[in-house]
């Protein structure tokens, strides 16, 4: 591990607080993660596990009700949490970019594609309109949009879903960011278009040395695209490590259950190993480990919240079962 990662989250917590302060939703709780330059991290979790809040925390795009209650957020060595709003505007789109789930909602229907792809270049680099538009044309070519010069003058409704998502990708890489956060980027795409898009992202990543954070509920995307994996459950990272190792030998019972509950093409006739129960309400978390009520291996100790253990090099798991043969890492502050 290099001394300084591109992005380092250290014990980060984000809570949503109701107007009277009586209800607190612990959407992100004590999350520590690191992303090295050029690396791909997959953040996996179900709805309500806090993965989108985590992404919005990194970009400091949280709604008013949210508070970052603890931790540090280091990007290229600078703590983004201490930056002013004006400074953050120079980070977003320029050094960290984000791709959202629904390309129709992230493009403005009233502006041409050229305007929208050129906008971040003009804003961040002060480039003149004509020069920014010719850069936009090159970017469309880079994301494989056929006849880019014509497309620059068209509007989003004239494109298919796959093309729109590629345009959002072009906007994302327009200012040469170091980190691209993609939040469920392919859920609205068809399978063959998804395959095209994922391959395109990988090429862009190689060509520009981008680090990627993939936020998804789909373990298949993680298996295909990512180097590192972090599994979130009820606001906490319950397990993290290199993708291959986690898939081969998951430590946390939740990761194990998730991996074995997915139908596979190869063994068709077997019954799926379903996880009983449902994800907990983040405003009323059970005491101790949040997964314990659904966990097949829960025991007495689970009533106490487990710290982060290190079951191996680069591996972390928030489970008492990982305690055997591993040294506790000071309650998550690693």
């Amino acid at each position, binding site marked *: 591990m290099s001394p300084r990662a591109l992005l380092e989250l250290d014990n980060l917590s984000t809570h949503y607080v109701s107007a009277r302060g009586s209800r607190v939703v612990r959407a992100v709780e004590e999350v520590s993660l690191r992303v090295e330059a050029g690396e791909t991290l997959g953040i996996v979790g179900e709805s309500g596990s806090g993965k989108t809040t985590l992404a919005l925390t990194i970009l400091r795009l949280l709604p008013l009700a949210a508070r970052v209650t603890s931790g540090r957020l280091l990007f290229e060595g600078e703590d983004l949490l201490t930056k002013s709003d004006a400074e953050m505007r120079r980070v977003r789109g320029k050094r960290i970019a984000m791709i959202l789930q629904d390309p129709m909602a992230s493009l403005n229907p009233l502006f041409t594609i050229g305007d929208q792809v050129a906008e971040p270049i003009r804003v961040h680099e002060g480039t003149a309109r004509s020069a920014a538009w010719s850069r936009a044309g090159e970017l469309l070519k880079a994301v494989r949009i056929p006849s880019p010069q014509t497309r620059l003058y068209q509007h989003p409704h004239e494109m298919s879903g796959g093309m729109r998502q590629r345009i959002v990708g072009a906007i994302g890489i327009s200012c040469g960011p170091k980190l691209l956060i993609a939040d469920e980027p392919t859920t609205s795409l068809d399978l*063959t278009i998804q395959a095209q898009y994922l391959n395109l992202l990988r090429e862009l990543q190689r060509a520009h040395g981008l680090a990627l954070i993939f936020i998804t509920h789909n373990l298949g995307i993680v298996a295909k695209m990512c180097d590192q994996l972090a599994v979130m459950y009820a606001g906490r990272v319950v397990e993290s490590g290199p993708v291959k190792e986690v898939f081969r030998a998951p430590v946390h019972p939740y990761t194990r259950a*998730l991996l074995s509950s*997915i139908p596979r093409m190869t063994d068709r006739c077997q019954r*799926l*190993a379903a*996880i009983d129960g*449902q994800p907990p309400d983040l405003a009323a978390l059970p005491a101790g480990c949040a997964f314990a009520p659904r966990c097949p291996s829960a025991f007495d100790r689970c009533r106490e919240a487990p710290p982060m253990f290190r079951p191996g090099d680069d591996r972390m798991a928030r489970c008492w079962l990982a305690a055997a043969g591993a040294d506790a890492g000071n309650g998550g502050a690693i």
Partner: protein
Amino acid sequence: MTLIEAADVSKHFRARRGIFGDSGVVRAVDGVSFAIERGQTLGVVGESGCGKTTTAKLVLGLEEPTGGGIRFEGRDLRALDAAGRQHYRKSVQAVFQDPYASLNPRMRVSAIIAEPLLISEQPAAGDVRKRVLHLLDLVGVPGRSADLFPHEFSGGQRQRIAIARALASSPKLVVLDEPVSALDVSIRAQILNLLRDLQAQLGLSYLFIAHDLAAVAHMSHTIVVMYLGKIVERGEAGTLVSAPKHPYTEALFSAALPSSPDEQREEIVLTGEVPSPLRPPPGCHFHPRCPHAMDACRRQAPALAGVGGRFVACHLYSAAAS
């Protein structure tokens, strides 16, 4: 034994664009044939616009075919009298994708499940409650929730309630249109297991439509692959998944995401996108994206023909056969 059989069924829609016409015909479903056996599952896969949902609507009787016919228990649907149609509607039920949209938020769970019962038969008043509780028990929802409203349930529980409603009129065929894609990953397996248990217990037939190829492979006995309104391949699920024959099936299954990072396989990435169904390419609809396209593919649409226990619509195989 065959429960339902579609022979050369088509559904064409008139499309009109703009004020001045530019009208055309969308062949949403174009000469499709399949059969569903009793107690078995037919899986339908394909991308958006391939006609999966129109096929489901035809089977549910929500759309009238513009060509061909559907036979249920040996009787042609068009020849049914009023009583016959009522029997058909009772025997074919559906579960939809989004359990947040498919349950009426102003009705109690018991009323939601009792509604098809009250319509399809006239049960005694005391009987209704008993049947509702039995159905809830069947799908694993506690009976005490009968008097709650849908908003009091999670997505998975709601989908169970939607399944209970579909089962209320004791159907023989259930159309499952993306039944798990709106659910959380950890809940999907619960619902898929439930559907398989119910099939074994009640001898149900399913028409299973989904994007998730692994889920379709897991649930189905037979799989139909559709592209722009036509069936390109049909066959026994296991062999179709492990050795697809049509180039589109091959590409589709190779685009499915791996189940582990160690899984090595050859990936066929198709270029281009699915063309507009208003102006499908001539000949084989798939030829502009097909890596094996030949001259014949541009001129003539291939017919679905038997190839080694499977049905494939591709000139690659008709050339080999002739």
